[in-house]
């Protein structure tokens, strides 16, 4: 791969993600104020001291945004990665084994999908202890049902190809068939889905935080910040728009990178040309 082959949009996306990662890692050093420190008046407009102004309790929005990157990025990324690992392994197992295993997994998946995601998450999170690991796992498992459906559909297409049969005839185990024969040929649709699911994860986390079941105050996350400051919008205070813009920007950045990866995998010599 040559660097100059990477399109400008992908560079923008990569830069955005790197910036977010940088903020997440070095938050205590680059944030001008503390995460929960009250430094000014309520809803102070942006000025030289507070670049994005202050929030509903007089905390610096920029600082909270930087600290919020940690939780938002960690939770959304971890939840998406886990949901993909889970969804892909289960769906590919179903697609390669067919029969009873496929039936059991698929019907269970249907069962999970028949319950509205948000309600399900609210019930489970209300019962289970409130910590970040549980939150990530609940989000991941709920999301993996969507990945499962897509994964099974694309894997079924590939599983009937002669090269998969050739691998079976060679005596290859299931994990080789799944990860070496099928997965590389289904990357394009899965990557597209990954970009979409990541953005959804950020939004879902924001929704949960907004409803008070996500990240618990006073810790900052972008969705929670929107919730805290939503009332300000009525008074013409832009404080809620800043974290909202950050969510949108990160989602767009991830998708720009994914679009490029997708083009790369599908235009690979011998790519199936899908996507």
């Amino acid at each position, binding site marked *: 791969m040559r660097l100059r082959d990477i399109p400008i949009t992908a560079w923008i996306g990569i830069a955005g993600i790197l910036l977010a990662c940088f903020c997440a890692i070095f938050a205590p050093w680059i944030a001008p104020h503390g995460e929960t420190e009250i430094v000014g008046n309520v809803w102070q407009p942006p000025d030289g001291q507070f670049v994005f102004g202050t929030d509903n309790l007089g905390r610096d929005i920029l600082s909270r945004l930087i600290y919020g990157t940690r939780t938002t990025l960690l939770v959304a990324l971890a939840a998406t990665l886990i949901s993909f690992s889970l969804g892909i392994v289960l769906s590919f197992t179903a697609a390669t084994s067919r029969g009873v295993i496929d039936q059991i997994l698929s019907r269970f998946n249907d069962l999970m999908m028949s319950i509205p995601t948000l309600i399900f998450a609210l019930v489970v999170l209300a019962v289970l202890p409130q910590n970040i690991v549980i939150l990530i796992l609940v989000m991941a498992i709920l999301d993996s049902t969507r990945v499962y459906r897509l994964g099974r559909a694309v894997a079924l297409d590939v599983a009937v190809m002669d*090269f998969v049969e*050739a691998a079976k*005839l060679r005596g290859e185990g299931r994990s080789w068939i799944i990860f070496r024969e099928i997965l590389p040929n289904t990357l394009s649709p899965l990557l597209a889905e990954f970009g979409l699911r990541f953005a959804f994860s950020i939004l879902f986390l924001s929704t949960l935080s907004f409803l008070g079941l996500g990240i618990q105050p006073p810790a900052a996350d972008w969705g929670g910040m929107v919730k805290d400051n939503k009332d300000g919008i009525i008074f013409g205070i832009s404080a809620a728009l800043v974290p909202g813009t950050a969510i949108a920007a990160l989602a767009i950045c991830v998708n720009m990178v994914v679009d490029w990866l997708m083009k790369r995998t599908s235009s*690979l*010599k*011998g790519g199936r040309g899908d996507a």
Partner: protein
Amino acid sequence: MHERLQSLLSVRDLKIEAKIYPQGEAPRDVTILEGVSFDLKKGKVLGLIGESGAGKSTVGLSTLGYGRGGIRITGGEVLLNGQDILKLGRSGLRSLRGAKVCYVAQSAAAAFNPAHRLGEQVIEASVEHGIMSREEARERAVYLFRVLGLPNPESFGERYPHQVSGGQLQRAMTAMALCPNPELIVFDEPTTALDVTTQIDVLAAIKHAIEETGIAALYITHDLAVVAQVADDIMVLRNGKTVEYGTAQQIIEAPKEDYTRALVSVREMQHEEAVDQSRPLLRLDNINAAYSNVLQVLFGVSMHLPKGQTLAIVGESGSGKSTLARVITGLLPPSAGKIVFDGEELPKALAQRTREHLRRIQMIYQIADTAMNPRQTVRDIIGRPLSFYYGMRGRRKTERVGELLEQIEMGPQFLDRYPAELSGGQKQRVAIARALAAKPDLILCDEPTSALDPLVAEGILKLLMRLQAETEVSYVFITHDIAIVRAIADSVAVMHRGKLVRFGPRHVALSPPFDDYTDLLLKSVPEMRIGWLEQVLKTRRMASAGN
């Protein structure tokens, strides 16, 4: 009707270009056809022959003023009755296509709309162009169905495409092309997808219809033996250029160019038959097999194969020959019977077989494109059996892959290529190397050459024979082509509707007395000489008159 002397179709110095989009480079134009000229008189047939990519379909379509995706006709002229159709506008072309010039596609099954009755589709162009009324068109369709030898011509048009056989569908498509009384028909490989026994009927029907209606035709194919039966003149194309252009007689009997000579002699490969039966390798005993326990496809099939020899399984599509291969591999466990391999009975199902069993039986597929993972390089594809069966890695593995590439007459420059960067013949060679890497005792070949051009296929067959001489590997070779059987087989099994109709050493199986099916099969294989078709049809007529 008096014979007109001037040409109906006259193509002068045709030049066709296409835009290609190489990765990482600016798009550029490439010439895919250049300097092609020919004349076609009324009532005559010109055969266009060449391997895939030679430009034969492109020439055919240019007579309809059409270029497939991104193709532009940039030079020369195509005169139909003296009028240059390349200068026609959209409406001019519309009144030309489907009315004066008609097209018969390779796959009739894909060319008919499955939602409409055949009759409606056959007369559609004639009615739309206002050439005849619906009633007249129907009458003509029935007449054409009769000329083309379709069953129940009166009611044939009532049927839907899925209700008739592939051969009948191809004839229906010919009827569709003939219906508006065109001046020229372009046949684009009309019999390539058909079994030989069906092909002969379609060929006879097409020939009869051309004689009956006196129209001119372009007949495109890669099979010189087929075109020799229907064409008056033959043009050999290669890489978008004319190699040779002459009468059918001259091309077949006295070809001038080396390439044409190679094409004419491609089916003459012969194989010295081995007779040593003392070292048995594979024996099938009374195999029955069924799909989903309901649809039985194999009925008591028994055959055997000695070490280092080739068993050819011959039959048309649906005869159960590929199913037999699936039974031997264990993909489809037989419902009855046993498979004995090297003196030991093989477990029926794939899951019960040991890695050693699997290593000793390898498989080569018909379509090499789908038989190799498009995301793996040649190094990975050939290297995997090495590390899987022999635990090879690192330098030793790379060396062995290099040796295997050498064996299949390809060099180390292919190591890091993906399958899409290989030609059809090279892909099939890599598939052979993959099978060979396991050092098997038996390779099942499921029509490995039927998707390849004749000269490339011949190269593959020669390679397989050389590898057999070097490594003593045995082949079960599934094919529908009798010429291939003559070229490679030591023993022959003829399958028909799931039953074995004939089995034995080649010289016995392929010499009389024949059973009815083998006789039909052998007589249906086109021979590389003029007048073969007439002769076969004549003997058939005499036989039926005698009954």
